[in-house]
Each structure stands twice: as C-alpha cells, then as structure tokens.
C-alpha cells in the first residue's frame, strides 16, 4: 500500500474490497491529490473520479492500467483510465459515498448496487459449497482463511496487565509463539506481528495484519480476571470521522467475526469451567483488519494455571474455535 512519487507525475494504487452490501474502491495517492479529487456521477452506472493533474493508476493484480478500454477490477466493476483519473462503471449502481482519509492518504468510494451481495472480486477464489475446517460461512458465501496473523499485545514500555511475577507483554508474546507453532505444524501460514519485546504501535500492527480478506488476525491479551473474553469490533453505526472509520468493524466481516467468536466461546466453555464473555468494542486493531479479526483475553496467570496440560487444552480449544482443529504436541 505505497504511493511513490514519479517526478511531477503522481501514482495511485487502487484497492477493491467486497463487502456484504457495498463495494469499496480505494485510491491510495498523495494527500494533495486526495484533497482535491472530485467524485461525481456521470450517467447511469458511471462515476467520474477526477484528480487535479495527471497520474499513473495501478491495480495490484493487473499492474499499471493504461488505454481507453475499461478494465475489470471486480465482478461488475470496471475502470476506464484517463489522464487525470478515470470512470468507474458499476453494474446496477444505486448510489455511492466518498470519504478522504489519511495515513496513507486515500480516497475511499463506497458504491452500493442493487445486487452488491452477489458481486465477488475477480481475483478471489470462488467459494466452495462444503466448508472445510478453515472455512467459515458468511451469509450465502464461504470465506477461506488461508493465513493467520497472531498479534502479541503490548510490548516495550507498554507492559499491559502486570502481576507479581508476570507482565502481559511477555506472556502474550510467549503464548503467541506457541499458538503460531501449533498453526505452523498444521501447515498454516502464520505471521507474528512482533517476535521480541518491542513497542509496536497499533498502526504498525495493522500494516502487518492487512494481508487481505483471507487472512485472520488473532490478537492475544490478558484479562485482569479469571475469565476469557472474546472481542470483535463494535458495529459501525455511522463512520463519519476518521476515528469512527478506524474503530468500526468492517461490515462485510462482521458476521464472520461473530461466527468465529461464537465458535471460540463454545470451545472455551466446553473445555474450561470459567466465565467466558463475548464483547463488541471499538478496538481499532481488529476493526480495521482486512479479514476476520478477534481479540482474545486469556485468564490472568495469577488466577489461572498455565501448566503444560492446561496450555495444550487452551491452544487446542483456540485452534478448534478458529477453524483448525489440531492435536498440539
């Protein structure tokens, strides 16, 4: 997600996100271009996107977009590139919204169609009819989870919950590594947001975690109590500001988040005889992830025994909950 300058001519990168009731088209480019861009209707099913001067537009799956012929960037969505922008051709366009956001500076266009839920991006695999262990039902479709990002909460000067003989930052890192190993042994692709005791800002964690809708983020934290808490992002009511946009869950992933959270709750409940809560809160890390994202708080080590047996049971329950049952060695 980078924008590179090229002398006087700027670059823009397009990203497309398919949500349950709208399609999000994002132009990532320089701040002055984003601020001065105009997005206007240009006839039935057509939206004109105009930047203040010429720029080179690229789409990761197709490279630099050139020529007058419209290029399909998702099913039912084409872009015809022009010198200083382009025309978006959207099948069954109903309406659209435009937002400008910083870090990275980007122009976000949400298009609503009469059949948005049927549209799928051209670059994504077609959902299979029978969900496998690592697939989760989301409405009528199935999202395949192809990789995992395990985030160890806190780090560096941010110690998190502190006890007489532990700090959350160290516990979370150690547990994240064990969970990562267990997933790797199952042949899963896993990325850790941090591998050592370092302070890692939320935005940096997000950069690491944003690996597309097929990647699941699981953020590991500790509770101050003897209980499990499973968090998903709070519902987006009206993402009118930057903060609101960053802290509201991705609507397309919400059902999936809930489904995985409930599965995880059930697994933990059946395995351990302690309180398990399901919570929805505006936590930015899980709200802004591309794919399904959960934050799990594990019981406080001063109140819960993390001996080898319990750890194995816990990791197994988590793996089952997130859709990958496994025997942990």
């Amino acid at each position, binding site marked *: 997600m980078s924008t590179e300058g090229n002398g006087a001519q700027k670059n823009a990168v397009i990203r497309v996100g398919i949500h349950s009731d709208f399609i999000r088209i994002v132009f990532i480019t320089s701040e002055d271009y984003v601020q001065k861009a105009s997005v206007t209707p240009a006839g039935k099913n057509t939206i004109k996107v105009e930047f203040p001067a010429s720029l080179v537009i690229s789409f990761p799956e197709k490279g630099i977009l050139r020529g007058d012929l419209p290029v399909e960037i998702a099913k039912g969505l084409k872009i015809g590139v022009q010198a200083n922008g382009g025309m978006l051709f959207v099948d069954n366009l109903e309406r659209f919204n435009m937002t400008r956001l910083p870090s990275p500076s980007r122009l976000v266009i949400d298009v609503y169609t009469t059949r948005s839920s049927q549209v799928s991006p051209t670059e994504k695999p077609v959902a299979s009819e029978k969900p496998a262990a690592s697939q989760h039902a989301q409405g009528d479709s199935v999202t395949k989870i192809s990789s995992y990002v395990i985030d160890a909460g806190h780090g560096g000067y941010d110690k998190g919950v502190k006890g007489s003989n532990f700090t959350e930052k160290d516990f979370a890192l150690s547990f994240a590594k064990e969970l990562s190993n267990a997933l790797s042994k199952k042949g899963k692709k896993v990325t850790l947001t941090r591998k050592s005791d370092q302070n890692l800002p939320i935005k940096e964690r997000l950069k690491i975690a944003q690996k597309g809708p097929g990647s699941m983020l699981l953020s590991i934290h500790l509770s101050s109590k003897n209980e499990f*808490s499973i968090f998903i992002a*709070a519902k987006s009511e009206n993402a009118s500001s930057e*903060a609101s946009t960053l*802290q509201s869950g991705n609507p397309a992933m919400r059902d999936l988040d809930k489904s995985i959270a409930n599965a995880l709750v059930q697994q933990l409940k059946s395995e351990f005889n302690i309180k398990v*809560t399901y919570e929805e*809160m*505006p936590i930015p890390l899980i709200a802004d992830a591309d794919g399904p994202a959960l934050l799990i*708080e594990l019981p406080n080590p001063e109140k819960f025994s993390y001996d080898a047996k319990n750890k194995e049971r816990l990791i197994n329950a988590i793996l089952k909950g997130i859709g990958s049952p496994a025997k942990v060695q």
Partner: protein
Amino acid sequence: MTAKKKYIIAMVSLLIAAVAGWLITGYYYMSTNERTFRIPLIELKDSQKAILPENTLGKGANSVAVKIFLPSEEGMTVEDRKILSSSLPVIFAEDLINEYLKGLQGGLEETKLIAVYQDRANIFYIDLSDDFRRNFSGDVRQEYYLLKSLYSTVIGNIMGAEDVKILIEGKEIESIGGHFYSLYPLKDTVTKDVISEQK
C-alpha cells in the same frame, strides 16, 4: 516620482514597520513572562461564559456541584462532589479534572494535570503528565472505562463541551493502554454501543 523611487519608499516603510512591530511584540512577551494567569487556547467571548452552569458565573471562585465519573470494577461509577472554581471554562475544566484525578486508583491518582485547552469546536484538550500512561495497567475494559470516565466527567459538567482529547506531556500519543486510540478525540470511541454478554 519615478516608479523606482516609489518602490524604494515602499520598501523602507515596510522595513520601519517590521522593526517597530518586532520591538513592540518583543517588549510585550518579555513583560508577560512574569504573568501568572493562564491563557486559554482561544480567547473567551462573553457569550461563551454561558457554557458554564449558572452558579459558576461570577468574578470570584464559587462552590460548584459536579459529577465525577470514575472507572470501577464493573464499568463506571458517578460521584457527587463540590469544587471551588472560576467562571472561566478552561479554569473550571482544570479544577474539574484535578478532582477527577484525585478519585483514580492504581497509581493513576499520581497523574498531574498540565493544562486544559479549548478549541473553537469546543473540544477540550486535557494535557496530563506521563503518569497517566505509565501507571495504567489494565485490560481492554479497564482502559475503555478509564477513557469513558474522563470523557463523561468533562461532557457531563461543562455545557457545550463537544469532545475530549488527551495529550500526554503536551503531545499526542497513540494509546494510553495499548487497546484504544488516544490520537483522536474520545467521543467516537466511548459513545459507540458496546456489547458484553456472558456465555
């Protein structure tokens, strides 16, 4: 008079004006070093005094009934207190926040209020010592209710206050406890519907 002469006269006049301005401004700032009153981010107009509760208006300090929201084991509690304060919103907010900080626990009560600023959108900037970040040790819910209690204390006592933003030692920081953003004003974080269900 030629155009060149006019140009030279204009430049000399500008130079004199700039030197005079610099001297006057320099004198003003030098002479205000000793001033003890605090200057809010914006000057207060008479009409803005109406944002305070009626009984706080007046020249001297008044006893004002306030509601202090504090984080608790299960969320947030509210306590009725009385503080002595001024009619100036920023000064009142400072006294209010000092009272709020006294009620915190776990080392957070050591936090010092550095300043309060108010911008034209009625966002109150609460500048706190680093103790607020450094001494916080808690989980997601504890951080959430710490932020919500500070927000509610300001919004619940200062009429017209639109939002609250935290600064630490005069700077924006990304997060107090590693779970929520404090880069932005708090309203969007603490006014969303949160759901908590025991399964």
